[in-house]
């Protein structure tokens, strides 16, 4: 694989994860536990979809096959999607939504922090802008982990159940693959091992304050969002998200 192909894969991963996480947040519209949360969820989702557009724009330019960011978002099947398995998981109750958001934010923050000094100027620029937004996302989701973990007995129990449900998907957050190793070595991508240890430190800190135990490291389970091997949730999510452009391929919206 050459570096351009590696970078395309990497951009798709970043863009797809942000997009799918944003899509899940859209599903909360009108159903959040408080009005302030309606505002916050849509705000975070808006940031993420905006970031997805930036990453996919760049990926489309490098692909140079006539597709644009919308084509990449709306006309790729699940086998071509490269998002983390974590973000495609269903919203569940608010504990599941918060745990997913926090684990993703803590990882996302580290990645963007590293990428803002990427040797690829375009990557560095997008990451620096996104980092400002994700700094806020992480603060917010971390505070909710603490509130719910160290709130009532019920909220604590729900957080334990949520962590048990989604923790195994963290396997992707702490294990980079060859593409990521090569891009890191070239000074373009984030160093996976550094991301992994910084991520774990943040999770341990917030879980500690939230009186929640940090489970043992998750083990590999024969799926990989990075290689387009998804859980069964993504296909349904894409069917909904992509319906209009698929049904009206000649349309201009």
């Amino acid at each position, binding site marked *: 694989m050459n570096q351009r192909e590696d970078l395309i894969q990497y951009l798709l991963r970043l863009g797809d994860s942000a997009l799918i996480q944003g899509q899940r947040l*859209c599903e909360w519209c009108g159903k959040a536990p408080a009005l302030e949360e309606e505002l916050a969820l849509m705000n975070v989702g808006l940031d993420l979809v905006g970031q997805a557009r930036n990453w996919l724009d760049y990926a489309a330019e490098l692909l140079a096959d006539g597709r644009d960011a919308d084509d990449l978002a709306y006309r790729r099947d699940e086998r071509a999607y490269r998002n983390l398995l974590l973000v495609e998981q269903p919203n569940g109750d608010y504990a599941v939504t918060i745990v997913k958001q926090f684990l993703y934010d803590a990882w996302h923050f580290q990645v963007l922090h590293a990428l803002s000094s990427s040797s690829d100027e375009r990557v560095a620029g997008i990451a620096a802008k996104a980092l400002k937004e994700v700094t806020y996302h992480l603060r917010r989701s971390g505070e909710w982990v603490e509130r719910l973990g160290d709130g009532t007995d019920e909220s604590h129990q729900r957080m334990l159940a949520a962590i048990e449900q989604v923790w195994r998907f963290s396997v992707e957050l702490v294990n980079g693959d060859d593409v990521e190793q090569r891009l890191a070595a070239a000074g373009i991508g984030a160093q996976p091992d550094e991301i992994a240890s910084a991520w774990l430190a943040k999770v341990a800190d917030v879980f500690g304050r939230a009186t929640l135990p940090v489970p043992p490291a998750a083990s590999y389970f024969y799926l990989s969002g990075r290689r387009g091997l998804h859980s069964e949730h993504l296909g349904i999510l894409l069917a909904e998200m992509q319906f209009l452009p698929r049904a009206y391929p000649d349309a201009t919206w």
Partner: protein
Amino acid sequence: MYAQLVETGVKRVKALDEMSPEERAFQEKIDAEIKIEAKNWMPDAYRQTLIRQISQHAHSEIVGMLPEGNWVTRAPTLKRKLQLMAKIQDEAGHGLYLYSAMETLGADRDEEIAKLHSGKAKYSSIFNYPTLSWADMGAVGWLVDGAAIVNQVVLQRTSYGPYSRAMIRICKEESFHQRQGYQLLLTMMKEGTQAQKDMVQDAINRLWWPALMMFGPSDEHSPNSAQSMAWKIKRQGNDELRQRFVDQTIPQLELLGCTVPDPDLKWNEERGHYDFGEIQWEEFYDVLKGNGPCNTERVATRRKAIEDGAWVREAAVAHARKKQQQAKRDAA
């Protein structure tokens, strides 16, 4: 906007010489266009009318997130998705402004929301119509927000200061939504396929009359209007605002190349206004009473959100209390 039928509880507007000295001083202040503020004396009926109107308005912003939320996961491009998400976020913000304005009158947010969930409090009838195609997102922006703006621009001069200031802030964002909605439809009509054009016309056919109903009953059937006008809560009659909306909207409709589902619509040279057909008032009152297409679903969704979220809010309160106690211990 979004408060189309508000009880004042007043049968007949009193003349100045029938009023108590307090009432009279209040009315003179209103007549002199001096804004009423939270700490000022006001007749109880004025206070209650405003609580009803502002809460209806706030509820409408919140329930109004649902017909659009219905399409936010299905928006056809990233740009349109971002626009819709930004708009929904603004609406939640408008709800927050309005509940705050309402609370300056001594009302309690949670109590008023409970009234919405029990069906006692109303919200705008328009949000009881389903959004059945993507074109509805444009039509809601253009027609529904357009009608809201006609109403809200006038409400910027409403007599109660906190409400008036909320309207000024809200109108700025609403105008932006309205232009976006119109531009969405224009793109579909000018650059779209026949299927898209049909979608736009169908959306207008379904939403035109419900949008006109947003202005409330005609003046002759609006028994509460006289008192609301005397108090300058309302500044203009329902029919006058509805006419203004029709007059400004028809040229925009023509630019789209669409029609309205009204065979009686025609320009009246003599009046300098469009004449238009009679609204189906039976439908209007049915929808307002709870018997519209989506009333059941809208209220059920909102009620479920608040009920399912109870444990989250309780946890937030419990955690805040723990933090407070910790801070006290640290200080001791």
